[in-house]
């Protein structure tokens, strides 16, 4: 074999009103084939109404080793959450 077909990531919207969700990946020579393969591999039982495919090499992923710097700052900003604010007990719904 000269070249392996590139890898594609598959995202499927299971029904209107819901977001596309990552379903898995597959190999295909081009985008059109990736869509057709995604239909056959991931939606044999009405799992979706819309499919996105994107070549895996175009996805930039964060590195779990940097999760500290990447996600921690949100944790010490408690004032972003409603429970940070003190209200009198008489206020039931706010």
């Amino acid at each position: 074999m000269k070249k392996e077909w590139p890898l594609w990531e598959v995202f499927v919207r299971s029904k209107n009103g819901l977001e596309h969700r990552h379903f898995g990946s597959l190999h295909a020579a081009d985008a059109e084939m990736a869509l057709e393969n995604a239909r056959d591999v991931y939606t044999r039982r009405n799992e979706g109404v819309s499919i996105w495919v994107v070549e895996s090499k175009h996805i930039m992923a964060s590195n779990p080793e940097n999760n500290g710097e990447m996600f921690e700052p949100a944790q010490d900003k408690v004032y972003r959450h409603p429970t940070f604010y003190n209200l009198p007990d008489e206020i039931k719904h706010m």
Partner: protein
Amino acid sequence: MSEAQIKSLEEEFEARIARDEKIEPKDWMPEKYRKTHIRQMSQHAHSEIIGMLPEGNWITRAPSLRRKVALLAKVQDEGGHGLYLYSATETLGISRGEMFEQLHTGKAKYSSIFNYPAITWADIGAIGWLVDGAAIINQVALCGTSFGPYARAMVRICKEESFHQRQGYEIILKLTEGTPEQKAMAQDALNRFWWPALMMFGPRDDDSPNTAQSMKWKLKRKTNDELRQQFIDQTVPQAELIGLTIPDPDLKWNDEKGGYDYGDIDWDEFWQVVKGHGPCNKERMKARVAAWENGEWVRDAAMAYSEKQNFLRKQESRAV
């Protein structure tokens, strides 16, 4: 990285799994974890696509259109399951090409059960009922495994497998309601597939040195013998209900343990088949390699077409 650093990473890693956290592909993992998963997951994928061969053989000879569409759909599912599992394995850093290479050179194994022939239509029933039945028991246990992509593939596969087993049992059921010859055909298929199905759970616990490590990583939730017992206890009543006899004279209900006692499994046969001396090992590999090699020009042509389209698109945009 120093040895002490690795050791502390390993401890943290084991602790995460013990807390039921999932491990994702880019997370740090011990080399042994990566290698064990590549081995087990690729073998699992190989089993799915080799498993298409004994059944695929019967698609053109299915006795009715109803049976034919069902078998076609089942075989297509097996192909799909192989693809989910190959993709999941690739996240660990091995390429599809390397995995195929290992399969075709015999370096990687696949489930021994597919080295037995499907010689009658009843065998297609027995495969769905017993082989898929055994596979489901193994796979349900894997839905909670620690490696995220493997667990997700297993959940999807388990959802699809139950149709496989039901269609197989229905085939056998219909045969048992038929002529004496048809009933005999069903019994014969059970006779030939019963013991190989029990072997699908792997060696006895005493002879399975990797079990402890696999349990720790949740690659196994139950031991081989526990799963085998579960399969026997659930299958015996299914056979009795349709008037078939399990081909084991030592099979007997044991009230005390709440399960069946069963006869000795022929482990020599098991190892013979694993080592490549089963009835169909050579035939299966020949069919698989031929399919791969005969498809090479199609794969290359598709790639060449895609490259040409990209080239033309670039030229077009430059012209503008």
